[in-house]
């Protein structure tokens, strides 16, 4: 908090802390000075992804990228596919370790391979593009 | 020597660019003190209210309010102590009773509700002075300038309104 107030941009963006945040909002509820810590963490993560302040093969930004790609394409998330994609891109060897879990999911019918899709997918692209347009207009 | 009574034409007071003029009647024990506290705390708010100090909100005669509107105020704000906190035990209740009737009368005259307001602001609530005044100014800006229904109204000579007598009972 102090680092970002004092303008230590690199130190903040490359810190591990922002990736440790799971956005559980506990900090916001407990903060004795009512600082919106979670919201700040979101903003820092966004900045770090945009400006590539993270180690190679680091899973979280990849997850975020894949997540957004999937939404742009289908409008919804298919968790099993997402998980596999992320692992493939970061540490495919770990995929082996998840074999047991995968089997369990499969056994209980919770693993899905066909993509969840919405019907009016064009609306999502339009929607997201519009945000980009307004953002640029606001920036000017 | 200025001609202090010359009124500008209404044309210069356009909505939007228009700055409402509000007359405030603040009781000396609570709301006036709160405004002083806002000052010592350097809380900034809209410069549209001119305050008249009274000892108690119970001192505010409905005629004062009518007179303010008659002389071109765009809004009137009465500030008193919270219920139960009156320095004079119950002056604010007397004020409240009068205000309720006065509001009905103003409505009959076609004066918008937002132009006349009674607020309880204690001596400790400096920031509330800002909130109330800014809010009122904003609402009056939206309403535009006030046009007095009867230009010739003379508050002193005017006969007492029946309702006001009721209010006193």
């Amino acid at each position, binding site marked *: 908090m102090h680092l970002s107030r004092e303008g230590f941009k690199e130190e903040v963006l490359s810190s591990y802390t922002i990736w440790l945040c799971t*956005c*559980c909002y*506990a900090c916001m509820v407990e903060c004795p000075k009512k600082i919106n810590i979670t919201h700040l963490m979101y903003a820092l993560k966004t900045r770090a992804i945009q400006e590539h302040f993270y180690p190679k093969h680091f899973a979280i930004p990849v997850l975020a990228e894949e997540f957004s790609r999937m939404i742009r394409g289908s409008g*919804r998330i298919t968790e099993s596919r997402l998980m596999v994609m992320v692992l493939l891109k970061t540490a495919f060897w770990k995929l082996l370790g998840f074999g047991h879990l995968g089997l369990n999911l499969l056994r209980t*019918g919770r693993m899905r391979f066909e993509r969840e899709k919405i019907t009016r997918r064009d609306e*999502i692209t339009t929607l997201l593009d519009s945000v980009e347009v*307004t953002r640029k207009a*606001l920036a000017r | 020597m200025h001609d202090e009574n010359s009124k500008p034409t209404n044309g210069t007071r356009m909505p939007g660019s228009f700055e409402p003029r509000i007359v405030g009647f603040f009781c000396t024990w609570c709301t006036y003190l709160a405004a002083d506290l806002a000052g010592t705390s350097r809380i900034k708010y809209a410069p549209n209210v001119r305050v008249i100090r009274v000892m108690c909100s119970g001192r505010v005669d409905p005629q004062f309010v009518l007179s303010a509107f008659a002389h071109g105020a765009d809004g009137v704000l009465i500030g008193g102590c919270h219920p139960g906190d009156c320095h004079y035990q119950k002056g604010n209740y007397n004020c409240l009773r009068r205000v309720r009737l006065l509001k009905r009368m103003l409505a009959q005259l076609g004066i918008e509700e937002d132009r006349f307001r009674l607020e309880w602001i204690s001596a400790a609530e400096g920031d509330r002075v800002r909130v109330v005044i800014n809010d009122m100014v904003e609402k009056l800006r939206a309403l535009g300038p006030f046009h007095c229904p009867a230009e010739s109204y003379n508050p002193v000579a005017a006969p007492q309104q029946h309702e006001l007598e009721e209010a006193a009972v």
Partner: protein
Amino acid sequence: MKYTYYPGCSLKGTGRAYEESLLAVFRALDVELQELEDWNCCGATTYMSYDELKSYALAGRNLAMAKQTGNDLLAPCAACYLVLNKAQFYVKEYPWIGDVVSNALQAIHLPNDIQVKVRHPLDILLNDVGLDAIRAHVTHPLKGLKVAPYYGCQIVRPYALFDNQRNPTSMDRLIEACGATCVYYPVKTHCCGGSQKGTLPEVGIDLIRRLLTEAARNQADAIATLCPLCQFNLEAFEGEAGDSRKFNMPVLYFTQLMAIAFGMPLAEAGLQRSFVDVKPLLAEREIAYA
């Protein structure tokens, strides 16, 4: 009673059991749910760190469509519930975000009104249906079953007003209405790690271990959850978190517990989808089930 139902992606995937049991329980209670037509991802947690504004726009589309139905919106997934609420809050609080969202909605020809009431099933069950009506449906009370009520993060904080943010009790009351007992569970609002088990496994597993250990230490038979991700994390990694000891503790959605108590066939409430079978436990506690 009629609500617009927003399942969210998880309830169609790993959290299928939540959807199945939720629909079954609401049907039994005569609460009509109409699934929001062509809903999209809510824009939750992960997406929010990618692009906050777009996340509000995604939430906006769902909310605008829900507003048109005229009913309150039911969002059972904790993350969806939070993001939908958060989007409304930010649009109201920051006019410029409101502009971004309204432009985006205009581009897809949706009205700009997104202020529909977003409700959680707990809120509806407690405040609209009422505990008395629920008790009336209990045919197979879960007597003797000790449950750790786990709320997790995003449901009660920071926007929900229907329960206490530090010590929520709405699920406790619900579970007790079904005849079970709630054990003292001080970590009930601690975090399960979210997606960290996938991204930073060593951090995630610590959080999961704490939750499981505390439940075991307080002699719980099972954990009740209300979020698909929490349920998945707790259940899927019981082995890994256990180290030497084995937890073998069923992690159930509160709606599944209700379904058992309502005397529904286990399969109807998606109980066959659990990794840890609940039947031996029910047998041990001598609880009858349909």
